[in-house]
């Protein structure tokens, strides 16, 4: 079982390859506004998380996800 901090650490680590602006990443970093991910890149990132944790992340959660922390919480909910 992974706790919130564990999910957050994984997400931050996984985001480094898509962090073209090389900004410092934290739970408050916004995926689109700060990192500049396109909608296609967001979906590629989601697939990376799905493969790692062997879960499926419904598209329905995306409107509630803005920051890396938001996403870590959602992944924790889906993979308790």
């Amino acid at each position, binding site marked *: 079982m992974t706790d919130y901090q564990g999910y957050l650490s994984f997400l931050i680590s996984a985001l480094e390859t898509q962090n073209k602006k090389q900004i410092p990443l934290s739970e408050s970093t916004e995926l689109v506004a700060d990192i500049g991910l*396109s*909608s*296609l890149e967001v*979906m590629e990132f989601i*697939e990376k998380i799905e493969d790692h944790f062997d*879960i*499926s992340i*419904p*598209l*329905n959660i995306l409107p509630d996800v803005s920051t890396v922390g938001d996403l870590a919480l959602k992944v924790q909910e889906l993979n308790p």
Partner: protein
Amino acid sequence: MLFDKFQTMADFQAELAERGVTPFGAVTEKILSSTEGVVEGRQVILAGTNNYLGLSYDKRCIAASQAAAERWGTGTTGSRLANGSFAEHQALEREIAEFYAVNHAIVFSTGYAATMGMCATLAGPGEVILMDSDSHASIYSGVQLSGADIIRFRHNDPEDLAKRMRRLGDRASSTLIIAEGIYSMLGDVAPLQEIAAVKREYGGYLMIDEAHSMGVLGETGRGAAQAAGVEADVDFIAGTFSKSLGSIGGFCVSPHAELEAIRFCIKAYIFTASSSPSVIASTREALRIVSAEPERRTKLWDNANRLYQGLKDLGLPVGPTASPVIAVQMENRSRTIDCWKALMEAGVYVNLVIPPASPSTNFLLRNSVSAAHSSAQIDTIIAAYAGLKQAGLFDSQQAS
């Protein structure tokens, strides 16, 4: 501000206007035949129309349409649920069901309404939709309205679909799986034998959108499911009349008797006016021609293979296999617009596609082939691309 989010599009429109190109909403001023017209003041070969069997200008379809307008008037002025169900609509429903060898069919006013309406209605809150990631916008719009949990599987990847069905556990048996026959932008065909096998293993329901494959694939033109020999595994087939059948409208057919109840739950069916009888009449005639003249499919594929091979021989980045939809993939937006403009100047109209309408970050010069194209027209299209290549417009343009 309310309009801020449209600024990027407004800037792009301004850029196109400054460059003197009109790839989006280019006005067709005159239709000369199924494959030629005058677009934005230029006489061009139409190579971006989805008119796969060349029936949009068929004299028999036109005559059927004219006769129906005389008999029924210009419109129904109401929805199918109210005053808009004419005998023509019911006849087309019988005939499209017979065409697909099933007992149940719904006719919609557009193809978009058919797929969007079915996707919005079949699965609901607490249920799951598993959809191909490259699905058409009408499918995305529909599933978002459904209230179901929406999960994507990787494009044309049955193993990824199986993995996600496994993760669903007990929920898999009531899951709606959605794929297309031929995908509209790149022309690639879904691996339906493998997708159907996943459905057989885990259960669930399978819906196939045959918008670009009806009339194009299969022994009698029923589409990709027929070509793959998996029709028995398909619960719902949706499609359109606006491509191979040359008119406008959409349909869903199913072996399930429940489709008759579902019909009355689809907002896109209930709350819109039914198709004009003249449209329905030409569609009926076109459907008859699809069955009666299979040689049109043969000619379509001859043309598709000729264009595909011609573009491939030029070294252009086209897909892995021939298809009536052949997209040249580009990485640079400005260069792609230059190519579109040069093709128009060479007398060839194709579709310019930019993300997110394309399924990746690539830009597309999307060609669609018709059975009505002559071999000489296909060669002219190839020659136009050769001219672009000679002019250096494809330099440093590798496929991604």
